[in-house]
């Protein structure tokens, strides 16, 4: 077997793929945060809790209704998106004229409520969710075995990111959206229903978090606390990448996932902290973030 710096190639590639899987989640979640921030000027602390909800809905659908993975892939994000729309209409809507910090605090409170509620109902321990039959097993690539499910997560996340990028940058709807992000009052004056767009944006971005949750369900224990720790890492990713560009968040997310994977191979003790260390270094040399512009 070939070794690289004393690490078997197979183990190294395995960790890199795992890193890419985590990186895909970072990418989808930070993309959602960036889209929400652009339209609502709110940092959505509920994002992690809604990601968790996506995973838990998937598990509940199977457990209580016998609905399998493929249907969950549509139903769970739709449910999460619907909840997001309710949150936006009932709560967030009232904060748009205030300092953005209040949005952070409100969504933090909401995250505590959602997490606490599920914790009360299901306890701290996670529930297992098995990989759908079509995606179990692994592909033999010659130099390594690639588990099919991991490949699927990476491919699906990339497709979702690409779709979002295309919608925002290349379609008429996306043009309205960018106009509203740039200057909401003027866009409204031109006859575009901005509040509706804001609502749909939030619903869509939150639905993305739900979708990430569905994708994550078979890779981890589905439990109430799976969202919040991930979200803090995603915050660091957002700080590193800046929220200026969609492709920027995708590249940053995947890159940091890879760095995390590499750290796991060479210095496992630092694997949970490496993203934060990268953030500190980036802040020292490029305070606005890799792809960001300081306003």
């Amino acid at each position, binding site marked *: 077997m070939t070794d690289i710096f004393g690490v078997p190639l197979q183990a190294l590639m395995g960790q890199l793929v795992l890193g890419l899987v985590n990186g895909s989640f970072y990418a989808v979640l930070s993309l959602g945060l960036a889209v929400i921030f652009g339209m609502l000027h709110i940092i959505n602390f509920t994002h992690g809790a809604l990601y968790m909800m996506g995973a838990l809905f998937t598990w509940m659908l199977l457990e209580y209704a016998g609905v399998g993975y493929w249907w969950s892939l549509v139903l769970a994000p739709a449910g999460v998106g619907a909840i997001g729309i309710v949150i936006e209409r009932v709560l967030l809507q009232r904060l748009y004229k205030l300092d953005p910090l209040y949005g952070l605090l409100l969504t933090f409170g909401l995250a505590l409520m959602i997490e606490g509620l599920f*914790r009360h109902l299901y306890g701290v321990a996670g529930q297992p969710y098995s990989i759908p039959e079509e995606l179990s097993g692994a592909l033999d690539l010659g130099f390594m075995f690639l588990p099919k499910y991991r490949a699927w997560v990476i491919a699906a996340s990339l497709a979702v990111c690409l779709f979002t990028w295309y919608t925002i940058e290349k379609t008429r709807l996306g043009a309205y959206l960018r106009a509203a992000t740039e200057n909401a009052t003027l866009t409204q004056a031109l006859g575009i229903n901005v509040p509706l767009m804001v609502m749909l944006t939030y619903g869509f971005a939150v639905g993305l978090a739900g979708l990430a949750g569905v994708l994550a369900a078979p890779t981890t224990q589905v439990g109430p606390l799976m969202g919040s720790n991930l979200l803090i890492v995603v915050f660091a990713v957002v700080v590193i990448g800046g929220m200026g560009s969609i492709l920027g968040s995708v590249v940053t997310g995947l890159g940091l996932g890879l760095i995390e994977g590499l750290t796991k191979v060479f210095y496992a003790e630092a694997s949970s902290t490496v993203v934060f260390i990268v953030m500190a270094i980036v802040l020292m040399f490029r305070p606005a973030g890799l792809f960001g512009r300081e306003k």
Partner: protein
Amino acid sequence: MMQPRLSTYAGLAGLALLLAAPAVIYPVLVMKVLCFALFACAFNLLLGYTGLLSFGHAAFLGSAAYITGHALKVWELPTLVGLAAGTLGAAALGWVFGTLAIRRHGIYFAMVTLALAQLVFFVLLQAPFTHGEDGLQGVPRGRLFGIDLADDYALYYVVVALFVGAFWLIRRTIDSPFGQILKAIRENEARVLSLGYDVTRYKLLAFVLSAALAGLAGATKTLVFNFATLGDAHWHMSGEVVLMTLVGGLGTVFGPVVGAALIVTLQNELADKVGSLVTVIMGAIFVVCVLAFRRGIVGEGIALYRRMIGEKNR
């Protein structure tokens, strides 16, 4: 002119209550409230008076708690030195956090502090001297000026003295020319900058001071409970201190004290009754405060008082 006199009376009344409290209430509970009140006051100096939302203040509370615990238990240093070590350690950490976080503004500042605090949390989780999930237990209280602090009542008056001293320092800071600049930064940073003040330095100093006082709160907490745990450094704790300050009244002198007393008492009362639903209730209070009660208890009180005064003068 009415304002300072009123708050002086309130302060004296509060002090009298504090000195008499152990006759009626279990002193350890009051000490717990005082530790969190100090923590919240330190936080308020930053959010309420400088306009900087730090979402990582648990890092200062937690690391100071561990430093003091280690100094007293393993190095067997005198109590006062242990407290000072915790406070200075938190101040140094605050300097690092501040230097990095101040490079970004607003919402990014909050995210940077949260991420750095998470880094500290993981370091504390893995470092051998913190004993991981078990925490640092059996920290001795030691003696201070010849008095044995193992007695709860003796320790109580030491904690009151520490709290009053720190509280006085915070008030003095707010009223000083330095504090005026902080408030000006909160209102309009660009203008302060254009007047020729080194905004970054003022912010950093405020951050370090706030971190040091949060550290003192953590160090004192270790002394009171004889242990330091990871819970003190968890991001939930960073959220709790925001909640205390918000409920009591952002940017008011006594607000954080009232908020801390309320939240700590509430948690104490609810813990046995509703168990894990406490988090849900805390979250709900958060949501209600942000939506409908942004001035907090003390802030609403002051607003009401001003309205009454205004009507009288008319």
